[in-house]
């Protein structure tokens, strides 16, 4: 049984069919890169796996840990062990980062009190994401995910909008989220990950076991992540951005 199994998934978002029959598998402990041109449906795929309201599954199924989660609520999926680092999470006025981290830890199995490691100690009393820079948003997301400690984490362009000073810290923290702290066995946990990346930069930190390429809402290619990335860098996707 695979950790995540998606069967012929068709998804409508904003009155358009975005995913047109996606099937894929992810094993326990496997890290998978997801490539594709802008508008190919990568973020929609992640939003659908998480169960966000903007997506409607018209046919197909999603299984996680053997359970059919296709129509499960977002929080149930979260409690089952799915985590998400959004590319552009919304501002939530009046909800502080500290409160959100505490609420996350209550429902998850991760740790709190580590905001210093993320250089977020001065942000705990601030409204989450309000006025945060690109790097601060990523660090805040990772701090929240560390409180949740999901078994499967989806990262939507973790390196986008991040300056050089931040990329190293973010890369290392993503690594820790998946593999545990250096010198530990992560409590015996094997965490899987799905990473959307345009540059492949994040792969320098976490590696990847395999890659999918999504084009026009369909899986166009599957294989070795480095070979695929090299090919994309040399030849492009062979299609215009949608």
């Amino acid at each position, binding site marked *: 049984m695979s950790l995540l199994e998606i069967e012929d998934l068709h998804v409508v978002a904003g009155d358009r069919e975005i995913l047109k029959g996606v099937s894929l598998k992810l094993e326990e402990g496997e890290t998978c890169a997801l490539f594709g041109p802008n508008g190919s449906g990568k973020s929609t795929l992640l939003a659908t796996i998480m169960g966000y309201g903007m997506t409607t599954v018209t046919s197909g199924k999603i299984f996680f840990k053997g359970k059919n989660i296709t129509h499960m609520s977002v929080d149930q999926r979260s409690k089952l062990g799915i985590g998400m680092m959004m590319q552009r999470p919304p501002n939530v*006025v009046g909800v502080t980062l500290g409160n959100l981290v505490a609420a996350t830890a209550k429902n998850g199995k991760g740790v709190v009190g580590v905001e210093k490691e993320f250089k977020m100690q001065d942000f705990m009393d601030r409204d989450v994401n309000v006025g945060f820079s690109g790097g601060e948003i990523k660090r805040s997301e990772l701090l929240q995910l560390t409180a949740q400690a999901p078994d499967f984490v989806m990262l939507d362009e973790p390196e986008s909008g991040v300056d050089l000073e931040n990329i190293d810290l973010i890369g290392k923290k993503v690594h820790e989220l998946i593999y545990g702290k250096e010198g530990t066995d992560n409590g015996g946990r094997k965490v899987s990950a799905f990473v959307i990346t345009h540059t492949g930069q994040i792969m320098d930190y976490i590696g990847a076991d395999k890659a999918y390429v999504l084009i026009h809402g369909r899986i166009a290619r599957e294989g070795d992540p480095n070979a695929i990335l090299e090919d994309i860098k040399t030849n492009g996707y062979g299609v215009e951005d949608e």
Partner: protein
Amino acid sequence: MTRIDENEVKKALDKPAAYGEDIDLNEYVEGDREVEQIENITDTPEDLKKRMINVGVEADDDGKEGTILFIDNAMSHCSNKAQEGLIIMNTQKALEMYPWARDYYWSAIDPTKDKYTAKTYQEDSDGYFIYVKAGYHIKTPVQTCMMLAKNRSVQNLHNIIIVDDNASLDMVTGCTTVHHANQALHVGVSEMFIGNNSSLSFTMVHSWSDQTAVRPRTNVLMGKNSNYVNNYVVLDPVGTIQSFPNAYLNGEGARCSFNTMCIAHENSNIDTGGCAVLNAPNTGAEIVSRNISYGGKMIARGKLVGNAPGAKAHLECKSIILKDGGVTHAIPELEASCSDVEMTHEAAVGKIAQEQIDYLMTRGLSQDEAVSMIVRGFLVGGIRGLPTNLQSEIDAAIEKANEGN
């Protein structure tokens, strides 16, 4: 006291208010003017105590400079720990004791404004009288509690607050009903005077019953470099509220802010807001309102009037509708009679963004928990300087409202 034409007042007894549904005063009997005296506030009967705590008034009176309790139309308790610099007593007694108090009586509000002010004038209504002498800064809040105890009665109050020059005062006032006085009318005329370089912070928490009618009338006259903060919080079900306090910034450099936080439950009809009249140069005002409709009717008003150069003011009305069936109406108004003013407003009415709910649910919060957290943040987020003891009341009200839906 300015000369008042008794005939005009008599005529005004039938004059409906500018806003809000009209109330027939004849449907109510007079509130009692003789009530049981409570010597020590800790001896307050338990059921009353509970209602007081509900509206942020502490019944142990420790650490408070003074506490006044009104039941219907009479004062039941008055304590003044810090005699120095502070006078607190009932209005009618103050008028007898201090001839100068007459200069303030009916000087900020015209009794012919509407039937509620006219009625209060005609009744020679009592209320609380609070005076801070020049140069005194009263450190801990004075608290007042106005309680409706007699069903189908009208509570008519006339309050006067004077903060003389170079002085400051914080007030917490809670208004509430005793359980059996569900169908009653609360009318409160409040005249406030803030001297030069003085400040007054006035926090009012209302917790009524679902058929109570409420018609406060408040005017604030402000001196040079004075500061006024008005917080108004209504979290529990109510029949009808119509309130539109006015601050007149008559001294140069005066600043005021009105913060309103309301939850309109099903069958509640709330029409509230504030008006700042910037009459002097370089004055500033901010009106912020945050409202939630759980199926009730909510009208959020705000009015800024700029009459002097350098006046700067902002108005912000935001409402969230959590349940269909109600009406939410934001009415921001800007009026200027001078070119050198800067006044802005923003208003928004809508539901909570699905994206925000999804975001919090991603972290394992249930839909209800996510909505509560967002609603709480929405109510509290935009409003600065709310008393901390209100936070738990806000949580409880949101929880109660969510349960009922």
